[in-house]
C-alpha cells in the first residue's frame, strides 16, 4: 500500500506540485460577509421573538399568580361564584400544611379598590418586565455595534 515517502520517486507528487492554487473571484469575500450579516440578522430576529414570547408567557404567569394569591389571602370575599382548585400532591400538602392549605374558597368579584390593586401589581410586573426587555435590547444593540 501507499505511504508518502520523500526518498521514493513519485511522478504524481512532482506533477501535483506544478498544479497552481486557484483564486476565488474578487467578490467572494464580500458575498460571504453579506451572507454572514444576513444570517446574524436572522438569528437576532429569531432570538428577539423568543424573548418576546417568554416575556408574554412569564408576565401572564406572574399576573395569574398575583391574582391567585390575592384571592386566597382574602377569604372574606363573598361568594359570587366558586371554583375548585386541583388537589395538591399529598406529600407536598403535608409538608407545607402549616404554610399552605387547599383553598376551598368561594369568592366574589373583589371590591373596586382590591381590583385596582391587582391591576396595579399586574401592570407593574408588565412594565418592569417590559423595561427589562427594552434595556436588554439596548444593551445588546450597543455591544453589537449596531
Amino acid at each position, binding site marked *: *500500500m*501507499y*505511504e*508518502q515517502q520523500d526518498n521514493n*520517486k*513519485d*511522478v*504524481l*507528487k512532482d*506533477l*501535483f506540485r*506544478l*498544479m497552481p*492554487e*486557484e*483564486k*476565488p*473571484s474578487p467578490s*467572494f*469575500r464580500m*458575498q*460571504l460577509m453579506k*451572507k*454572514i450579516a444576513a*444570517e*446574524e440578522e436572522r438569528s437576532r430576529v429569531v432570538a428577539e421573538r423568543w424573548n418576546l414570547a417568554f416575556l408574554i408567557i412569564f408576565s401572564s404567569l406572574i399576573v395569574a399568580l398575583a391574582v391567585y394569591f390575592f384571592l386566597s389571602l382574602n377569604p372574606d370575599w363573598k361568594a359570587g361564584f366558586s371554583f375548585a382548585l386541583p388537589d395538591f400532591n399529598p406529600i407536598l400538602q403535608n409538608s407545607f400544611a402549616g404554610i399552605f392549605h387547599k383553598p376551598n374558597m368561594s369568592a366574589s368579584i373583589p371590591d373596586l379598590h382590591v381590583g385596582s390593586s391587582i391591576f396595579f401589581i399586574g401592570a407593574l410586573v408588565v412594565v418592569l418586565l417590559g423595561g427589562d426587555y427594552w434595556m436588554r435590547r439596548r444593551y445588546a444593540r450597543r455591544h453589537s455595534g449596531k
Partner: protein
Amino acid sequence: MEKSSETFFTELLDRYERPVFSLILKIVRNREDAEELSQDVFMKIYRSLDKFRGESNISTWIYRIAWNTAISFTRVSKHESADIDDSIIENVSDSDVESEMERLDSEERLSRLDKAMEQLQADERALILLFYMEEKTVAEVATITGLTVSNVKVKIFRIRQKLLVILQKMEDKEYV
C-alpha cells in the same frame, strides 16, 4: 460574534480561503459551484467556531467540513468515471509514465493531469488532492474523510495507479 472570534474568523479566511476554494474547484470542476460551496464551508465554520474544541487540528477540521460539503454536492450530480481493469492497475509503474512525461513541458503535463483527474470519481479526486496537493498525511486524510488509515492507504494506492493508467493511455492515444 465577539471581537476576538471575528478576528480569528478573518484570520482563518486569509489562511484557508484559497486552498479550500482550490480544492473544491478541483473536486466539483465548476467555478460557480465551487464559489457557492466554499461560501457554504466558511458559513459552517463561522456557525460552529464557538463549538470547535480543538480536539483536532484546525486545518483538519476545516478540510473535513470542505470534504463533507463537496462530497455531498457531488453525490447529487454523479458523472461517469473511467472503469479500469484491476490487472492493468496493478501492472502500471511510475517509471512508465515518468519517461513519457519527461518529453512534455510543464503546461502540457498539467493539462494531461487535469484531463486524467476529470476521469476519476469526485471522491477519488478529493482523496488524491488532499494527499498530493494539500500534502496531508495518511492519518490526516483519514481524519478528514472519516475513513480508517488502512482504508485510506488502499484507496490512495488504487487511485494513483488508476491515474497512472489514464495518463499512460493518453500517451498511447497520442502516438496512434
